[in-house]
């Protein structure tokens, strides 16, 4: 695992990708959430040539275990994020 690796936990409509739990991404130094979003789309397309959920990715938010993260939030190596599709609990 690269020292620039982050992990993105998968939920809802993203569960069908990868192992259904998380995707590892290698990011450039100084990456922010917006770069995570871009890298995740690229990685999902590599893993799944028929990946067709770019709109779902665009509509999704990112978070840590404790809070939502804005597009410009910094991402540090080793960080664990979650990609959160539009919600519909209850």
């Amino acid at each position: 695992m690269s020292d620039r690796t982050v992990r993105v936990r998968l939920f809802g409509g993203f569960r069908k990708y990868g192992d259904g739990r998380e995707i590892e991404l290698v990011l450039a130094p100084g990456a922010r959430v917006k770069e995570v979003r871009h890298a995740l789309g690229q990685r999902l397309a590599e893993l799944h040539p028929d990946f067709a959920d770019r709109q779902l990715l665009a509509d999704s938010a990112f978070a840590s275990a404790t809070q939502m993260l804005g597009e410009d939030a910094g991402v540090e190596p080793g960080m664990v994020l979650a990609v959160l599709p539009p919600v519909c609990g209850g």
Partner: protein
Amino acid sequence: MANRAEMTDKARGPETAGGAGMAGNAEGIEVAVVESAIDPTRTLARVTDPGHGAETLFLGVVREHNLGRKVLGVSYDAFAPLAETVLREICKEARARWGESLKFAVTHRTGRLDVGEISVAIAVGSRHRDEAYQASRYVIEELKIRAPIWKKEHYEDGESEWLKGHALCSHGERAHAREKNA
């Protein structure tokens, strides 16, 4: 913000799902995302207070049809740690609005549920009925658009589908949007 700690999306098992062994609801807000069946009487018991004259209990249950399709069951997915944080925030907002004496207990289920099973239980205790009804309604409406919880319906024809929902945004963006809409 760095977050190097291991995160788990694991919902709580029955041993902590509002069981009799839990500590009292002294803070007045108790939330849980659980894997096991919800016992609504236990959820309701969490808001009991001798100073209260009203207790409401809202139950969300799995419906057998949606948009003209026969539904056999629903699978709920949740990012449990953040969902519990959000549920607690929602309850705090309701308490600030309808009274600091209000008590809340919110339990949301994950995993595969059959038709008729309880997906969410919301209990509110208050001095009088009006604030309990209003606070309960506030909690379920906010839960639906803010808590990181998702549902996948399973249909009679063998297909399954994640339901479309409400897009989340960061707290800052949400606050900004509220100010604009005020």
